[in-house]
């Protein structure tokens, strides 16, 4: 049950039941859809850029707790950030949910990141504080089948930011 509790943390369940930034911001001008053909889940991300900065972001769709919470948490994390910051954040996030990030320190998005030790489930994990609340999704790494649930919305976001209005899939 412990790894289930790691996966389905209170914060995740809260964002699943009450997703933030759900819906299309009235002034959004770019969007993209993410589809997981394996399960039929879909998510649509809406954004508005002001210069290089993300001025508005929202999402719609139906999915599992992981994908919905990942979308909700993502919208909070990327609001107001620049394209470059978003790319870096996603690189770190991706490493976290795939389990690629467990060395003491390593290269990510071209720069060495500072890491702090952090006690969790009896073992030392090294976490990047800059991921902030997104850290609650770290439990996904123990569930490889669910990594795509946690990353689909990010792929849709990046497609929307690049003005690739087309559909992105997990495959």
């Amino acid at each position, binding site marked *: *049950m412990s*790894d*289930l*509790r790691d*996966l*389905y943390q209170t914060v995740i*369940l809260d964002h699943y*039941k009450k997703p933030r930034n759900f819906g299309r911001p009235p002034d959004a001008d770019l969007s993209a859809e993410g589809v997981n053909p*394996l*399960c*039929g*889940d879909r998510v649509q991300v809406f954004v508005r850029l002001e210069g290089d900065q993300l001025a508005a972001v929202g999402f719609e769709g*139906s*999915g*599992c*707790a*992981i994908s*919905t919470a990942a979308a909700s948490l993502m919208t909070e994390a990327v609001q107001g950030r620049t394209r470059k910051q978003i790319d870096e954040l996603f690189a770190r996030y991706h490493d976290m949910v795939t389990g690629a990030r467990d060395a003491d320190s390593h290269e990510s998005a071209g720069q060495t990141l500072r890491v702090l030790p952090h006690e969790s489930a009896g073992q030392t994990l090294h976490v990047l504080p800059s991921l902030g609340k997104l850290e609650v999704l770290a439990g996904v790494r123990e*569930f490889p*089948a*669910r990594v795509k*649930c946690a990353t689909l919305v990010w792929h849709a976001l990046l497609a929307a930011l690049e003005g690739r209005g087309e559909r992105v899939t997990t495959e």
Partner: protein
Amino acid sequence: MSSARELLRGPAAPLTDLEVARLREDFPILHQRMHGKPLVYLDSANTSQKPRSVIEAVARFYSTDYANVRRGVYELSERADRAFEGARERLRRFLNAREAREIVFVRGTTEAINLVAGSFGRRLAAGDEILITAMEHHSNIVPWQMLCEQRGTRLVVAPIDDRGDVILDELARRIGPRTRLVSVVHVSNALGTVNPVREIAALAHAQGVPVLLDGAQAAPRMPVDVRELGCDFYALSGHKLYGPSGIGALWGRAELLEEMPPWQGGGEMIETVSFEKTTYAALPAKFEAGTPNIAGAVGIGAALDWLEAIGLDSIAAYEHELLGYATERLAELPGVRLIGTALRKSGVLAFAIEGIHAHDVATILDREGVCVRAGHHCAQPVMERFGVPATVRASFGVYNTRDDVDALLRGLRTAIEVFR
């Protein structure tokens, strides 16, 4: 073939708990732990596990009799031929088909339907219609859509009701002067519905229209007699009937298969080849281009031996009891909605839990050692029809027990607990 148990207890008596406990011993894979819990495999509608006799038959064939078929003049090749053709004859008996040459080996149900779409369909004209139902698997939708794109045929869909039963009057109304084939699932993988395929065949034949049955789910769960059902094509997969994956069969009435053009071209399907003209082999080789899955065929033969030694009537009766028990137990849980409540069901228990997505349920069940499928089950139009993005599907095989159902219920209570 009547087994010893049929002679003693009658053909339709459900398996006893003792008999199921014994036959579970035939499945090496079931005796392991998953995440520290006993493995509970409830995904047999997806693919079934394999009894030792199938695993050993395939290993023995590769160890002693393997060579290519229909080519060699040497003894080993003749042995391989006998094993391969023996499996075809075994399938003929299993389906009570008239002739072994009516059995075409394919990769599985999907390929069988693609064969009919690609060969039978090549003779169709723009405006001709293929009639299916709203509960079909993607494998009985997409090949026809591809045909529609190529030839301008039309795909017509008969609706289903809120229980998940096909509405027969609506289906009958859709059989018209341009209908060229009715293609229907025998047992629905997403809903468990057992379709009234005899009635459907009679309705179609009254208009002179042939009928294809997708038997992927039915063949492992109930006796199938293609002549008694009155269909014209029957498609099945080895991996769902306790045999290997990558092998299946299309049965077709000889008159139809004879008329149909070859599908794939290559070796084994020809009589003579020259650059001016090639003539094709007789049935069934006409539809079996290339080296087939020879050991797969041997495996399917062993699976049918195993299945029929138990008795499909007894399996059907036992699974019916088990499904009844699971349906009752599931009703104990709050917020559960069964998807698929047809009058006749087999083997499949699909449901949605309020406030919990199917994938989350499946992840939590996995940690309890319980394997179920979550998603659209390759039947997205069915999900659409019932207004759910996905369902959880527990499906039963002959090795499942009430204990397995109880483990499922414990896991579901955990899921409800986690999401409270």
